[in-house]
């Protein structure tokens, strides 16, 4: 979700900053630069205009495409453009770290916090997790040159893999990541082609369904191969489909956009050159590692830590199953698109009210959840692009930068939607400003304080509105031998772990898409339908203007009250409250493994792994070590039910008994 505020320069200094830049380039006093005269007429030329774009980017943090900055542009129009583009770009902030190229680009480096979450989630057994967290999409192609398309795509992938190291990324079983050199075997993702040009309609459809089903449910796994799975089906009548699956472990949403764009650009033009990148994702992660421990980072950490005890509960949505007992395979969706005119109207209405479209939709979603859950103070989770602007190339990198961010929403009683949205915007901006500590770390600490191993933010809001504009240049729709891309013909599937329900809003082809992605097994379908319908109705009312001044109909209760199975209110008593000296050799050995991994004394059988300082990533390692130590297969679920020394020892004994039992049969 893009932050709603413009760049650090308030709108009225944009004109002054730009005048200063033009003055420098043209040898004029800033005050003497007329605002309505073309750059060319003032003495500028095309070389200077290129420099102008670079200075705008460097000083105002706004990326302008070269096609925007022609010699015919006036200062007025440039200021306009900068303001529009800056609402989509991130806030520019002075950060106390420098990114430098690592000496060895293939050296392993640690996972970012959200990557750890996905990695751990992949281990299976964690609540609401899948074997892979991945995004799958396929899109229709027409006018395909069947003889050339495969070569073009393969060539494009090769060039892209050289340009973007993350295509060659791998993750080790211990939770580190690294990049293979381009010439290493398997480094470049292979493209699978299904040539169905001579197939019958039935055969073609059957194959398509099979590919789609396979790629939706089984994503590429960077622990065992590339994180990108690319396939091309060639269909009769010069048609085709391009299938893309990306593992969220190494690619975030922004990366998917950049990757698609660059892949298509390279496919379309065999000469296309992407400007070289000065840094890569590993360099960024190393730099962020140095951020921890700086004053700025500590200040953000203290800011969050000071608020944790006062955060509301996640929406207490009524459930028809306990997430622990559910083994989901796919997330199901509800989807609706707003036509371009409606979307444009919504944008205009938002601009009028001084809120960003993302904030408005977040507020609508919060209201929907409040009604469904029965309380109006809610803890929502969100996915943030979170690319800290430590280097000008950051926005062009493919990697896993994203992080979550908890958003406490307290919907006021008896207020209009407009008032509620303004309040939400203020809260959001404030929280987003403290982004040096990732939301994943905040969530971990919150879980620790709440004494739970359940996800603390299982209801998520994700917006990528404005991202396309920020990336610049339109998506190429004509892709050389791959023909034309039909955006209307776009199928997608998403699996993110530790999420019960996620609302996603994005733009496609000038339409606004509103999607609910959820674990179907958890909720009553009629309730989901009703909630989604409410969200859509509210969104449409915002577009036609009627929804803004209406008082929001919200439950009176601020906190969850209902009983029964509800999201966020699931922690039962945690087994026995055993404490005391380590009772036997199994417990002693478990304690020693934990001591080794956590670097703290583990002297009591009631010691809780997470309270001792462990997180889910270290837990995975602990399970691996205990498995080796005791020679039994330990599951995550066994551990999480009772993550104490006594509990883990009991799990070991149970596993031994089970294996002995099956061995004796």
């Amino acid at each position, binding site marked *: 979700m893009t932050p709603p505020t413009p760049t650090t320069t308030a709108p009225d200094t944009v004109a002054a900053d730009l005048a200063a830049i033009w003055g420098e380039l043209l040898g004029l006093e800033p005050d003497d630069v007329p605002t309505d005269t073309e750059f060319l007429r003032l003495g500028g030329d095309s*070389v*200077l205009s290129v420099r102008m*774009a*670079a200075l705008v980017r460097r000083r105002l943090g706004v990326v302008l495409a070269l096609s925007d900055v022609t010699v015919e542009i006036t200062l007025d129009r440039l200021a306009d453009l900068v303001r529009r583009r800056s609402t989509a770009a991130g806030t520019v902030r002075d950060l106390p770290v420098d990114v430098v190229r690592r000496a060895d680009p293939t050296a392993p480096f640690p996972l970012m916090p959200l990557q750890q979450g996905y990695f751990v989630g992949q281990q299976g057994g964690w609540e609401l997790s899948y074997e892979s967290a991945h995004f799958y999409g396929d899109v229709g192609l027409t006018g395909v040159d069947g003889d050339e398309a495969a*070569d073009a795509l393969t060539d494009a992938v090769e060039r892209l893999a050289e340009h973007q190291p993350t295509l060659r990324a791998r993750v080790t079983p211990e939770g580190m990541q690294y990049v293979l050199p381009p010439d290493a075997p398997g480094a470049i993702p292979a493209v699978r082609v299904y040539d169905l040009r001579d197939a019958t309609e039935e055969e073609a459809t059957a194959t398509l369904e099979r590919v789609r089903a396979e790629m939706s449910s089984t994503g590429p796994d960077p622990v065992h191969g590339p994180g990108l799975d690319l396939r091309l089906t060639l269909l009769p009548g010069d048609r085709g489909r391009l299938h893309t699956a990306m593992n969220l472990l190494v690619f975030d949403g922004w990366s998917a956009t950049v990757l698609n764009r660059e892949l298509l650009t390279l496919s379309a*033009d*065999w000469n296309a050159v992407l400007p070289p990148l000065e840094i890569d994702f590993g360099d960024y992660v190393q730099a962020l590692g140095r951020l921890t421990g700086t004053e700025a980072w500590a200040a953000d950490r203290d800011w969050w830590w000071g608020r944790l005890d006062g955060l509301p509960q996640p929406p207490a949505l009524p459930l028809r199953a306990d997430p622990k007992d559910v083994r989901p395979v796919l997330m199901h969706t509800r989807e609706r698109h707003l036509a371009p005119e409606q979307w444009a109207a919504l944008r205009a209405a938002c601009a009028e009210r001084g809120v960003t479209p993302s904030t408005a939709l977040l507020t609508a979603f919060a209201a929907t959840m409040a009604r469904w859950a029965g309380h109006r103070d809610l803890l929502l989770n969100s996915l943030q692009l979170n690319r800290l602007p430590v280097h000008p190339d950051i926005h062009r990198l493919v990697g896993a930068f994203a992080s979550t961010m908890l958003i406490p929403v307290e919907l006021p009683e008896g207020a209009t939607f407009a008032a509620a949205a303004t309040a939400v915007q203020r809260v959001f901006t404030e929280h987003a400003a403290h982004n040096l500590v990732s939301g994943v770390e905040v969530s971990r600490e919150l879980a620790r304080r709440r004494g739970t191993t359940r996800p603390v933010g299982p209801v998520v809001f994700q917006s990528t509105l404005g991202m396309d504009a920020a990336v610049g240049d339109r998506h190429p729709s004509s892709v050389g*031998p791959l023909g034309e891309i039909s955006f209307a013909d776009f199928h997608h599937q998403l699996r993110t772990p530790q999420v019960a329900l996620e609302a996603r809003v994005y733009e496609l082809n000038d339409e606004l898409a509103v999607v609910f992605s959820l674990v179907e097994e958890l909720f009553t379908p009629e309730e989901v339908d009703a909630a989604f319908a409410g969200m859509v109705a509210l969104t449409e009312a915002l577009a036609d203007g009627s929804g803004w001044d209406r008082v929001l109909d919200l439950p009176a209760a601020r906190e969850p009250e209902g009983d029964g199975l509800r999201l966020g209110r699931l922690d039962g008593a945690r087994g026995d409250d055993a404490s005391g000296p380590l009772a036997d050799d199994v417990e002693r050995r478990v304690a020693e493994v934990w001591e080794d991994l956590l670097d703290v004394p583990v002297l009591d059988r009631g010691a809780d792994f997470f309270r001792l300082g462990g997180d889910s990533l270290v837990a995975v390692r602990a399970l691996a070590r205990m498995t080796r130590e005791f020679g039994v297969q330990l599951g995550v679920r066994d551990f999480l039910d009772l993550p104490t020394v006594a509990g883990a020892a009991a799990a070991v004994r149970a596993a031994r008994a089970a294996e002995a039992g099956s061995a004796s049969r």
Partner: protein
Amino acid sequence: MAATADPPPVPAPRVRAGGGPGAAADAAHLADVAHRAGTAALAGADTAAFPALVDRLDRAVLRSIAAVLHDTAGRRLGAAWTGPEVADAIGAAPRHRWIPGRWLADLAAAGLAERSGDRYAPPPRPRRAELTALRAELDTARAGLGYPPELTRYLRSTLSALPRLLRDETSSQELLFPDADPRTAEVLYRDNPVNRYLNAAAAAVVRGLTPADPAGLRVLELGAGIGATTAELLPALAGRTADYLFTDLSPFFLDQARERFADHPYLRCERLDFAADLPPGHGGLDLIVAANTAHNAPHAGRLLTGLRRLLAPGGTLLLVETCREHPQSLTSMPFLVSANPPRTDARAGTDRTYLSRAEWREAMAGAGLRPEVDLPPAGHPLTALSQRLLTARRPPENRSRR
């Protein structure tokens, strides 16, 4: 900026103040010294392979251009094309309409297209796999010639942008200076064997100059651009230069130079469009430098005449010039030609950018300048790249010795 390595020690050439028969011997000696300096700067590059590699690069660019034309316009054209047909199919801007014809002519000259009248049958449309190979071929030739990888990127970006260049939707400058980063241009013009040779040779020539005025040398550089040559000559001028006037058409380059050469107080920067006119003055300059720029004057002869006026007796004109049109520049040079005012010298009525070696020598003689150094020597592999160092002197006044 990276400092240039110290040039190898070369004895200062003997230059007699007088003219006459000794002058030829002096010139030969000077050329020899300069050639040796240039060779030393080659630092073991395998120049024997250069002629073949130049040819490969030329052909790779030509075939690439043909492939781009196929991609962009092929479907709308028949089996054989004319220049204007191609231009129209792509939607070329009026001032660039002539360029596709030039491409086709060069394709035919290289034996890659069949000509009959004004129609050309292009090479067949390559398949993707062939295009990948062609890209690699271009890069291999480039690498073998000692050009940096940035040149491949630049050539490919121009090929990619060919339709937009023709339509005037983008300019060569944008491609050459992506994001106003001068590094691409720098490495193209400096960091390769032939330029290292020429710059070192030029520095050797400059080292041998004696000033007309005891206060120090007076130097003028035309179209100095990114200052690649300037940077090479300044060490040879250190400590004995009174004034170095760095000029260019664009304030962008002047700003850059002010910053870059701030340590040289005798260097000043001024805007000068030498193609339009020259500064006033008579006989004051010891050295005039024009590197890869003199061809921008509409009439070479008139330019040289004007420059002679500015030179002191015995003063030197130093030119670095490309003396042959190479197909490898076909994705950039023609667009600059379109932008130029028409030429009125030997190039009149053609689309030529450059003058040949013979034409320069003729122009020099016609302007009353005596050619001195002409490198690389005939038969040397570096001649394949067609970039030359040409110096000429304004003869000293005849003075009685007693």
